[in-house]
Structures are given as structure tokens and as C-alpha cells.
């Protein structure tokens, strides 16, 4: 039975607590703004199809950047123009979710042209609502890709001249030319009939996704009374009398009757197969047990830093791999300049008992510094009671802080004595393990088998691990 009352859809929040304004009931849009209508249509459709609980709404950059104030769904705000790329990632990671990319014309048709084109071309099973108001509304009415010919904006004060600024980009027409999209329609918000048509298009585009039919895009000609400097009611007439002449309404593509529902097969690789595929598990049947070590070293967040060419990234990768072998949750994130040698390099490593939330290490508990600039740069950010390991052969200053543990090791000199200065990184790595007790020496040696590509260097690196480990262990606080 149809509802006997028309009121705010439940897919909106009751009050907009995320809005910093004191008024938690009134959206931030200007009077007469079309965003409100489209929001309402979307929320109503999510109510009717009972999809809100598995919907992820992606806000763009533009006035609707605050979509997450209003929709009681999952919410992500994407970088300018990138909503379809973010939507792709979410949909693939969570195929059961309903992903809505909501974008304006500056967002979708200018900076985000590549993203929308390729998401559409891949036929991502997402729903895109494209709000076309022919200008950049939020920033004060500048010319957008969709600005009409001869239309005056703040950046086209004498009217858009196609010879100079190009023609309006017709997104519905463009997208409909691609093979993959299943549903592309242009609608407009100006009278009862057309609002009703727009509402139906919004519903259909969402339903298509729920039915696994593929990519849907609805372009909505929407009033921006503030940007157009018009009365809200006049702006509706302008859509009808002016805008529609250059943006004809209609269904540009509808394959929804013909296409078969498609659900991407679930990735069936096991953890082991994935590890093999990305070569992070050496060929070994051996099991590596976790060691016992002091509680304060648990869950290290490690920053390794030095010159490019010192093996900084390899050191971090070997630590992460040792963590994998001993069944920790690990991450390794490199960060380096364009130079192969001589630039600065650092990497972020997590070795944790708990899942790793972010691979970024901003506040390291452990710093392994292999040159002076790295020590100077990162010493201040090490957490209190953290650990700093640094190579005294190359660093002629001392750690200034007195609230951290320090392990000073002449790693490069030790490596030189072994016969290859480039093993200093493995000495430092092993010293960390020996000092804290966090890894078995055998585990470290196993990581060398994949870390060291040139097999003739394996033996010397194993020696380096021994030397470093013993050094670290000898300095271990009792």
C-alpha cells in the first residue's frame, strides 16, 4: 500500500550532527537549490528499496561535498573529480554494497573527466548522479565545462564563446557512446512532470545497481539560483527555456532489459596463494615461532631512514617479511625521491599483533637512522620511551633526547670489516632484532633468501645478520 504520508525519508539523518552549524535541522544549501530535490529522491529510493544499510555515498568537491551531513548511509568524501575511482575501489572490495557517486559538473566534467570515462567504460556496477547547473556554483559562478554557449559567468563576462572556451561538454551523450554503461538519461528539475521523471530516473539508476545490471548515470539539469543570480522560480524557467535547448532531455541509453545481471566472481585466492603470488614467502616448510620479548617493544611502528642506496627500503622490507614469517600483521610503505642513489629514502614498517590500521608511521616507536639528516629529521617525532638506532660510523652527532632508548651501532664500519659496506643495512636490522629480541635470528636469515637477489651475496649477508644480532643482544638492557 502506498504511504499515506509524504515526509522526510528515513535515509536522511534525523538531525545533522556532523554539520558544525548550530542549526542541525536545516541543510546548508541555498534556497531553491536542486541538490535538495535530488537528495530527497535518492533518500526516498533507498528507503523504498531498503538499501540504506548497505549504501556508501560518495560526496564530491562542490556544494554537495557535505553529503555526509545528511545521508544516513556509509559516507566517503573523495578528492575533486575522483569519486568514480573511489566508488570503483569500494564496489570491488564490497560487491554487496550500493555505491553512489554524486558529482557536480565542475567535479565530473572537468577535473574528473578521466575517472568518469573509465569507470563508465569498465562498466562498474555503480550509480552516478551528475548534477549539471552549468557553472561552478560553490566558488561563485565561474564557467564550467557545461556552461552554455553565450552564457555569462564571472569568468566569461561577455558570454561563453565556443571559439575561445569550447562547446559545452555533453556528458550524457558522451557516456552513452561507450559500450559498457547500461543506463544513461538526462532529466531536469523544473516542473512537476519533469521532477517526477527525474525521480523515476534516480530510482531506476539505483535499482539497476541492486539488480547487478551495471553502470548507470543520470544527468540532472539542476537550478543554482545563487550562482545564476536569479529568483528560485525564475531559475526553473531558465532551465526550461534556455538550458534545455543545449542539453536535450531523454534516455540516451537503456540496455537494462537486454543485459544479464553480472556479479564479479569472488577472488578465491587463499592467503597463502596471495603471499606466493607476490613473492613474500620463501620456499620453505619451516615454521617460525614468535619470540618472547619485553612488552614495551610490542607492536613496533618503525621508521627506517637514510640515503638512497643504503638499502633502507630493503631493510624495512626484510623486517616486514620477518614479521610475516612469524605471523604478525605487517605493512611496509616506502617513501623516496626520484633518485636511485644519493637522495633521501625512508620507509614505514608496522609489525603488529593487532591489525594494521594504516601503513603510515607518523609517530615511530622505533627509528633506524642510517645517516645524519635522517636522525636530525626524525629524532623529534619518535614517541616518548621509543627506541632510536643509529649508525655511528656515518653520524657524527649524538641523540639529544633523554626520554628515549638509544642503540648506537657502527654498522657501516662493521660491514666494511666483513668485506662489503653495503651489508650495513642488514647489520642494523639484525641489531634491532638482537636488542629488542623481537625476531629469531633464524627468521631474519630466512628473509635474506628473498631479500637478497644476488645469491653470491647471501653468505656475507648472513654473516651481517649474525654480527648485528650479537651486537644488539650484547647491548640489550638487562
Amino acid at each position: 500500500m502506498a504511504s499515506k504520508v509524504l515526509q522526510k525519508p528515513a535515509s536522511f539523518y534525523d538531525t545533522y550532527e556532523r554539520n558544525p552549524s548550530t542549526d542541525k535541522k536545516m541543510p546548508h544549501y541555498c534556497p531553491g537549490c536542486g541538490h535538495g530535490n535530488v537528495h530527497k529522491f535518492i533518500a526516498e529510493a533507498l528507503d523504498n528499496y531498503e538499501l540504506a544499510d548497505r549504501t556508501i555515498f560518495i560526496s564530491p568537491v562542490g556544494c554537495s561535498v557535505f553529503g555526509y551531513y545528511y545521508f544516513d548511509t556509509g559516507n566517503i568524501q573523495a578528492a575533486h573529480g575522483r569519486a568514480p575511482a573511489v566508488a570503483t575501489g569500494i564496489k570491488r572490495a564490497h560487491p554487496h554494497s550500493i555505491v553512489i557517486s554524486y558529482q557536480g559538473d565542475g567535479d565530473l566534467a572537468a577535473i574528473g573527466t578521466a575517472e568518469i570515462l573509465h569507470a563508465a567504460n569498465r562498466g562498474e556496477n555503480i550509480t552516478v548522479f551528475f548534477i549539471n547547473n552549468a557553472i561552478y556554483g560553490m566558488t561563485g559562478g565561474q564557467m564550467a565545462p557545461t556552461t552554455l554557449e553565450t552564457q555569462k559567468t564571472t569568468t566569461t563576462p561577455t558570454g561563453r564563446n565556443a571559439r575561445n572556451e569550447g562547446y559545452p561538454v555533453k556528458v550524457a551523450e558522451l557516456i552513452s557512446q561507450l559500450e559498457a554503461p547500461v543506463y544513461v538519461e538526462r532529466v531536469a528539475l523544473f516542473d512537476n512532470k519533469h521532477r517526477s521523471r527525474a525521480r523515476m530516473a534516480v530510482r531506476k539508476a539505483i535499482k539497476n545497481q541492486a539488480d547487478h545490471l551495471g553502470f548507470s548515470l543520470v544527468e540532472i539539469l539542476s537550478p543554482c539560483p545563487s550562482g545564476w543570480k536569479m529568483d528560485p522560480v525564475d531559475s526553473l524557467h531558465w532551465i526550461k527555456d534556455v538550458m534545455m535547448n543545449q542539453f536535450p532531455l531523454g534516455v540516451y541509453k537503456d540496455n537494462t532489459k537486454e543485459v544479464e545481471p553480472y556479479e564479479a566472481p569472488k577472488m578465491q585466492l587463499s592467503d597463502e596463494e596471495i603471499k606466493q603470488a607476490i613473492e613474500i614467502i620463501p620456499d620453505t616448510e619451516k615454521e617460525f615461532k614468535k619470540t618472547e620479548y619485553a612488552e614495551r617493544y610490542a607492536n613496533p611502528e618503525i621508521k627506517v631512514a637514510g640515503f638512497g642506496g643504503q638499502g633502507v627500503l630493503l631493510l624495512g622490507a626484510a623486517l616486514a617479511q620477518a614479521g610475516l614469517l612469524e605471523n604478525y600483521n605487517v605493512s611496509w610503505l616506502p617513501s623516496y625521491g626520484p633518485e636511485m642513489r644519493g637522495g633521501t629514502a625512508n620507509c614505514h614498517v608496522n609489525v603488529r599483533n593487532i591489525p594494521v590500521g594504516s601503513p603510515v608511521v607518523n609517530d615511530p616507536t622505533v627509528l633506524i637512522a642510517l645517516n645524519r639528516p635522517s636522525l636530525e629529521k626524525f629524532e623529534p617525532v619518535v614517541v616518548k620511551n621509543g627506541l632510536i638506532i643509529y649508525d655511528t660510523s656515518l653520524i657524527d652527532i649524538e641523540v639529544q633526547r633523554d626520554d628515549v632508548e638509544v642503540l648506537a651501532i657502527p654498522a657501516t664500519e662493521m660491514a666494511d670489516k666483513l668485506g662489503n659496506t653495503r651489508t650495513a643495512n642488514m647489520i642494523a636490522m639484525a641489531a634491532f632484532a638482537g636488542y629488542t629480541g623481537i625476531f629469531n635470528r633464524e627468521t631474519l636469515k630466512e628473509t635474506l633468501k628473498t631479500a637478497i637477489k644476488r645469491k653470491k651475496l647471501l653468505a656475507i649477508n648472513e654473516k651481517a645478520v649474525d654480527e648485528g644480532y650479537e651486537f644488539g643482544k650484547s647491548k640489550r638492557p638487562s
Partner: protein
Amino acid sequence: MQKKKLEKPFVKVVPELCKGCGICIEACPPEVLKFHDKFNTKGYHFAYYLGDDCRGCGVCFYACPEPEAIIVYKKGYEYEGEEVA
């Protein structure tokens, strides 16, 4: 309390949530919405229902860009108490 059924549809505009854009007034087929002479605390002349002849068509609800400025109660709406909300 026993539920009653609404015999005549009607529309409610929440003055404090109305931004006075006038789109509902333009849209209303029986023309029963008007701007109020007063304005709300935001400074908008809000729309209000003249009090008769609403058909419950819902056109104003979909025309209104605000999520909850307009509520339309259709004929047959069940309610408790003396009056509808």
C-alpha cells in the same frame, strides 16, 4: 486510543525549515500554498497552507528542496489523538 483516519488530505509547512524559495507555491496544482507575510527566524517569508482544498497529490513535497519543510498527509492517513501532528 483508537486510530482515526484522515478524511481530508492536508499539507503542513514547517515555518522554521522553510527557506522561502517559493517553488512549492509555483508547483501546487490547486494553488493552496502562499508566502506568509511574517518571516521566520532565518528571515525567510515561509510558505503556508491556506487551509482548504489540498488534494494530497504530493507535488509540493517533491518540488521542495528541503528534506522536512513540507509534510503531506493524504486521505486515509491514520492518526491518534485529536489532531494530525
